[in-house]
């Protein structure tokens, strides 16, 4: 598996404040990589370093084998960057907008006309060709931005919050577009603070918090890490019973952790982190039944990405 984006211990300090603190990132070629973290976790700063806009305080980063600090122009050739804010030129038509950026990428005038047609078709804006850029809806602007990033046929797209501020329909459209681009062989590296956006289309995911990578890997790996890890919630009458459950279950096979939670509505609850299979869950249930403890409830909580996100990001935002 070859990496198209790689960073090693990337650090960015502004004075005493560390926006990015030793971030190591590995984005495989051809992947859709979701870069997830709460606001202020250092996502945008990392992207600005990758796009050669900001020099890292420390550490190294490569895109398509080119060092971000030493070969910025080669890096720019390899990337298409879409910042989180859409830069609008007033007094510019949709095709002129693309024509201008294509010219900035040194594409000959004779080739630009066809290129613009193709790009507009790809993002489904052909019918708005002659419209003014600032008259487009936000979703259309975002699609136009995406078309701009593709002007020079880059290998990697670096998209900062591509779906933020969009209505649900536009969000779906962008998502479909990203999948389509990935099929065309582009590597897509995009950030989001909404995990649901990421979960559906990503092949890889990296969760960042306080400028550090908390966990990263392919979606399959993430699921594999998560799925055997189940949560069983046992509800009992009082704290005494909860303690009894805890002592009973703690010694069992495949039980990772037992926690007594705060009583809710006068009932005590015990959370059992469990890595066994369905038979194991049944065994726990049976064991509790065998003991003389009054069980009010026994349930297995389903754990999704969102709860994993909540758990790995402990809410520490610098």
């Amino acid at each position: 598996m070859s990496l198209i984006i790689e960073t090693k211990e990337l650090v960015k300090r502004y004075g005493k404040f560390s926006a990015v603190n030793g971030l190591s990132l590995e984005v495989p070629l051809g992947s859709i990589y979701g870069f997830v973290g709460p606001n202020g976790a250092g996502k945008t700063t990392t992207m600005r370093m990758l796009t050669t806009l900001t020099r890292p305080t420390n550490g190294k980063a490569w895109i398509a084998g080119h060092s971000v600090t030493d070969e910025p122009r080669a890096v720019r050739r390899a990337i298409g960057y879409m910042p989180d804010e859409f830069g609008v030129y007033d007094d510019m038509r949709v095709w002129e907008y693309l024509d201008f950026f294509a010219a900035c990428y040194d594409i000959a005038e004779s080739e630009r006309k066809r290129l613009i047609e193709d790009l507009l078709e790809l993002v489904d804006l052909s019918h708005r060709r002659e419209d003014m850029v600032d008259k487009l809806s936000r979703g259309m602007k975002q699609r136009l931005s995406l078309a701009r990033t593709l002007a020079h046929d880059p290998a990697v797209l670096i998209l900062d919050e591509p779906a933020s501020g969009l209505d649900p329909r536009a969000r779906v459209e962008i998502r479909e577009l990203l999948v389509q681009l990935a099929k065309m062989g582009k590597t897509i590296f995009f950030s989001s603070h909404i995990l649901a956006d990421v979960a559906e289309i990503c092949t890889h995911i990296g969760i960042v918090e306080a400028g550090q990578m908390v966990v990263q890997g392919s979606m399959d790996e993430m699921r594999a890490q998560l799925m055997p890890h189940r949560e069983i919630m046992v509800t009992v009458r009082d704290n005494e019973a909860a303690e009894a459950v805890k002592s009973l279950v703690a010694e069992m096979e495949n039980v990772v952790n037992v926690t007594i939670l705060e009583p809710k509505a006068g009932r005590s609850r015990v959370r059992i982190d469990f890595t066994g299979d369905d038979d194991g869950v049944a065994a726990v249930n049976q064991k509790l039944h065998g003991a003389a403890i009054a069980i009010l409830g026994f349930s297995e909580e389903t754990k999704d990405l969102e709860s994993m996100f909540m758990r790995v990001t402990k809410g520490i935002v610098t």
Partner: protein
Amino acid sequence: MAQDVTPVEWIDLPEESLTPREQRLERAATVLRWGAIANGALAIILIVLAFLGGLKIIPNLFTTLHTLLLGRFSSADDAALATVILLILVDISLVLVLMIGILAREIWALPAIWLVVAVNIVGVVLLGFTPAIFSIIAAVWSGIIISRDVRAFRINPVMLKELRGRMRGVRAFIVLTIYLGLMSGFTALLYLIYTPLAQAGGSASAGSIGRVLFVGLVAVELLLIIFIAPAFTAGAITGERERQTYDLLRTTLLASPSFVIGKLESALSYILLLLFSAIPLQSIAFLFGGVTELELIFSFVILAVTAIALGTVGIYFSAITPRTLSASIRSYTIALAVTFGIPIILSLPFLNAFVNAVAGYGSGVSSSPVVESILIYIGLILVSLNPVATALTAQQLLTDRQVIGFWSVTLSSDGSTIPLVSPWISFSIAYLVISTVLIVLAVRQMRKVEA
């Protein structure tokens, strides 16, 4: 891919990220830079020699230099030396402009190369101007380097974008119409006010009316340029930052010189449009007579050079300040200081030497010829830094003594003559060199990566 190569191999290889085409352009620019440096070094040596010769330390120095550097120039030896220095300065500004044109991949850079070569060959043939060899070598060499890549030169995308926006719809034409209406009204007003006044004073020759109309229009245009040139360019870079498009541009392959030159060209082309569209109004002066075509050309050159210089001042401040407002304030401060501040310095009494020289009187400021000539040269330099003083002096020299380029002054202290140049030439050289320096500084500022 990243895993196959160790990180060390990527360090310190900035060349690698340039395409062969970009490398050739860089090389061509480097050749021209060395051409300018060689010219500059020669100019400095000659200025030092001129002082030594003027103090008569080395005998026959001027004669030797005259035959060596400007063999076919049949004037006095010291005038020949001054001419050589001046021609070298002209060459430096031409070569620097050419260098920036090539870096920005401007389509005009291609004919400009051959223009530089042709002008210098003419200099060699007509005057025997041997130092032309530096510029010819630099221009031809860079021309050969880029000859394989003429397709790299194209219409500047930034200029195209700006002009598309600026000239769209009816707005630009309404502005132009209002401008011409105001200028016509001003001309009519000037005519109506001046004619009865002059008739009452008994000096109502048609020529004097034509002259007043011409000078009045040029003055208004100059004022216009002083106010609109910085306004057009002070937002060049800060405006992109404020619109949040600057980062987008910086992640493209657009070279910083292209960006700066594109912004400058779009501002200048609009100003030039205003200037050109007013030429018919200026020609009304020809109906009355009293104004020569040369004056029209001088005024146009001075206005255009002023626009270029103030435009680059705007761009420079736009590059080094974070906001358009502060960039505008600084640009206007400089523009006003140069146009209105320098005349105040010029009115200081010890600088009368140059003013007297232009008027044709003995300066009478000093008994020492050295002090007197230094004062005259300082006066020339100061006048050359101000468009108004330059225009008035050049016009006075033209009408009183038919001076187009060179002239000389007889010192009142010892009766010897020193060579001088009409200020419109020194003004153009000084402003063009300052402009190129500011462009280079702005480009350097843009290339800095946020630390």
